[in-house]
């Protein structure tokens, strides 16, 4: 059943209920014709039938009910009395609605004479005809497609009433909406904002002058203000259509703009023009126009000049639209930006301690610039994954020929962009995963026909953005994997013990264990020493993860999750003793406090003995559990894992991270906050330290280690 059907079904049920309600209300009304509540009940029932009917496609019911409702609106307003005739007709109308519902159910044609008889009877009761407003009930509010026209430039002055916040309207979001229509230059007038002690934060003092160049037309601009047009002073003027102002050597003079906007009287302009000083200065100092209004007009002048400049030289920009750069130059640029981001973080930190307003402004400006520089630099390295995808077509074709299989490769999201280093290093794992799907997943044509499937198998390769990650899925409609068979094989290979109890998901994850292969026999294609463990490792080295789902007989889905870039991550900074660590933000699900008392109780339960010495005897990375809103979450304590000195605080924090679909807590002393982190690789000496994937330099110049969360959890599990 589609959602539409579900909605229609819900309406049918509701309408039936309402009709019963309508009937009993009408019968009661016959007893007490003066009861207003009853009239209201009748009206409401019909109103709902009409409104919902139209919404769910029962247009005939909506149109019919509209007449009945109109009659009762007259009754409700005291313009008509409740008579036996009215009640008879309304009851007949109620039956007609039920009849229309039945017709919609069975698909029978509606007997129009029957419905018309009731409508005509009802209309005859009402003083004056109501025929003409029938149409509006069914006129569904279809969105009118605004035709794209040639760009025009508008001057918009938006002065909301000071009380605008009380209607739940955010004037800024209207400005943002405007800016989405086209090229937008906004000047905010702040001159009415009073001194700090006099500000009423619930009033809106600002107002705006906007110059907008858009192809959407005047109606689209009016639509932005549709809810507020009565509560604001809104002026929209066309200042350029179809390149009007290209005819003039220069755009309008300042004085002209001010006069057009109504900020300046023509006579005043004439008078001031006699004096030969820059006009803006003269106007301001002589007090005929406020400084802000002059600035706003100058902004318009500049905006329009910019637009014209852009219009007259399109061929130049086209020629420079693409440029080839050596990859190592880009790498160097990213390195430099990384350094800059670090320095900027240090400056921000130092400045925040100095509390110098000038320095603060400068540092904020620097932060904005370096953020933009970072984003656009990283953007330069983004490439669509499509080229990699198209290489796979050949692979699939050749392999399926070799194995005597029929396979169709479907790709989605080829335009999805990824950092070029990630794309390069992703090639091999993806080839391996595809080979697996072709070799082990998709059956031979005869087996497929026997299983009632189409002869040709399908592999869907797709990429899509999801938050700060890219998800790549390889989905086949082959034979899938049997969790028990995998488990059996894993026991044979000595990867798990025979008495282990594993969920289906855990069974599937066994295929990533070293030395595991699901193939019955080693074929030419796979099983040449490269296992899924290598795939998993190379994806993890890209700070990504890989996940398998399968349904026996139906197929297998492998999802690879990757960060957008390797150079910079969003990280959560935490502290343990004097050491700082960074947890990649994509893995963090929540942070909760851990009271030490509760922790001791947990330990007491776990060991049967609560003494502190117990801790020293037990493995250092003892895994414990915490009860998180009814869910049991295991956690590890970094303080113990890294053998940090000193006592742990009374209240610690647990950062709950999601690893391979399970939740694991990481206990730290303090959570500091979220930061952009530039990743520095570790030197050779530290490369094999377990649980650390890199380092970063903090704002104060000291170092923080980036935690390799999946590895950390693995190590702890292994030690247990």
């Amino acid at each position, binding site marked *: 059943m589609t959602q539409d059907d579900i909605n229609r079904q819900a309406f049918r049920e509701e309408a039936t209920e309402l009709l019963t309600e309508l009937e009993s209300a009408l019968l009661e009304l016959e007893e007490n014709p003066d009861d207003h509540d009853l009239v209201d009940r009748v009206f409401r029932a019909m109103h709902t039938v009409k409104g919902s009917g139209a919404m769910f496609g029962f247009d005939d019911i909506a149109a019919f009910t509209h007449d009945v409702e109109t009659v009762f609106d007259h009754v409700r307003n005291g313009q008509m009395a409740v008579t036996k005739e009215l009640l008879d007709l309304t009851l007949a109308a109620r039956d007609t609605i039920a009849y229309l519902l039945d017709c919609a159910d069975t698909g029978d044609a509606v007997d129009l004479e029957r419905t018309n008889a009731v409508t005509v009877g009802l209309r005859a009761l009402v003083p004056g005809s109501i025929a003409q407003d029938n149409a509006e009930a069914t006129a569904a509010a279809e969105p009118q497609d605004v035709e794209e026209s040639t760009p025009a430039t508008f001057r918009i002055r938006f002065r909301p009433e000071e009380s605008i916040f009380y209607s*739940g309207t955010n004037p800024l*979001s209207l400005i943002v909406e405007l800016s989405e229509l086209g090229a937008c230059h906004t000047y905010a007038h702040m001159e009415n904002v009073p001194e700090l002690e006099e500000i009423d934060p*619930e009033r809106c003092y600002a107002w705006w002058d906007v110059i907008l160049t858009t192809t959407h037309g005047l109606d689209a601009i009016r639509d932005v203000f549709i809810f507020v047009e*009565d509560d604001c002073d809104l002026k929209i003027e066309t200042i350029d259509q179809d390149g009007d102002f290209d005819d003039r050597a220069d755009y309008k003079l300042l004085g002209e703009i001010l006069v057009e906007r109504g900020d300046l009287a023509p006579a005043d302009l004439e008078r001031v023009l006699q004096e030969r000083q820059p006009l803006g200065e003269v106007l301001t100092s002589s007090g005929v126009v406020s400084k802000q209004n002059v600035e706003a007009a100058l902004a318009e002048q500049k905006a329009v000049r910019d637009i014209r400049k852009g219009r007259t030289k399109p061929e130049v920009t086209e020629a420079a639209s693409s440029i080839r750069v050596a990859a190592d130059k880009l790498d160097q640029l990213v390195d430099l930006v990384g350094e800059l981001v670090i320095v900027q973080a240090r400056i921000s930190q130092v400045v925040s301690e100095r509390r110098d307003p000038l320095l603060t402004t400068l540092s904020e400006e620097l932060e904005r610039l370096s953020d933009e520089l970072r984003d656009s630099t990283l953007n330069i390295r983004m490439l669509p994954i499509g080229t990699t995808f198209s290489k796979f077509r050949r692979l699939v074709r050749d392999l399926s020929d070799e194995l005597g299989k029929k396979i169709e490769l479907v790709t989605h999201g080829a335009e999805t962009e990824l950092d070029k280093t990630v794309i390069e290093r992703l090639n091999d794992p993806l080839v391996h995963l595809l080979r697996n799907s072709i070799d082990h997943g998709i059956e031979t044509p005869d087996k497929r026909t026997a299983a009632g499937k189409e002869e040709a198998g399908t592999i869907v390769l797709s990429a899509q953005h999801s938050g700060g990650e890219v998800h790549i899925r390889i989905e086949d409609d082959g034979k899938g994997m049997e969790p028990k068979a995998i488990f059996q094989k894993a026991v044979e290979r000595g990867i798990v013990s025979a008495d282990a109890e594993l969920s289906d998901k855990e069974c599937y994850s066994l295929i990533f264990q070293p030395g595991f292969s699901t193939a019955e026999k080693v074929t030419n294609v796979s099983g040449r020493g490269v296992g899924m463990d290598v795939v998993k490792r190379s994806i993890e080295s890209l700070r990504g993860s890989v996940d398998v789902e399968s349904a026996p007989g139906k197929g297998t889905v492998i999802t690879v999750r990757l960060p957008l870039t390797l150079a910079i991550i969003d990280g959560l900074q935490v502290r343990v003793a004097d050491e700082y660590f960074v947890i990649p933000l994509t893995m963090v699900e929540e942070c909760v406090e851990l009271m030490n008392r509760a922790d001791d109780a947990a330990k007491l339960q776990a060991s049967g003995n609560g003494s502190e010495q117990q801790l020293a005897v037990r493995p250092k990375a003892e895994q414990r559990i915490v009860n998180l809103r009814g869910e049991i979450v295991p956690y590890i304590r970094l303080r113990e894992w890294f053998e940090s000195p000193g006592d742990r605080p009374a209240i610690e924090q647990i950062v709950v991270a999601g690893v391979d679909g399970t939740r694991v807590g990481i206990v730290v002393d303090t959570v500091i906050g979220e930061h952009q982190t530039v990743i520095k690789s570790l030197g050779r000496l530290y490369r094999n330290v377990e649980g650390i994937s890199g380092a970063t330099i903090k704002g104060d110049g000291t170092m923080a280690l980036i935690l390799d969360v999946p590895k950390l959890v693995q190590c702890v599990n292994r030690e247990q």
Partner: protein
Amino acid sequence: MAKTIMTVDDSASVRQMVAFTLKNAGFNVIEAQDGQDALNKLNGPVDMIITDLNMPNMDGITLIKNVRAKAQYKFIPVIMLTTESQAGKKQEGKSAGATGWIVKPFKPDQLLAVVNKVLR
């Protein structure tokens, strides 16, 4: 964090359609069947209210007045659902503090367009 929208309507089918549309678009939805029910359920963070006008127990206009009187919900967008025949109510709703309106019948994408307009 997903935003929370409360939908208030005495018609179960309209409520279902609104709730389904909003949930599909990633919003949390609280459903209430009339103004009184809505006031009772207004005890946590709500980012926006979409209310019918004609309802038993407490109508939409009274609900809007009551919502605006609560400090926590003073400035949240409140959208009212009206029908063409209730054009006069629009002004009444606005004076009570409504942010805007949607005319019934409406399609899911029209609803989302309005939600995205007022809830940025």
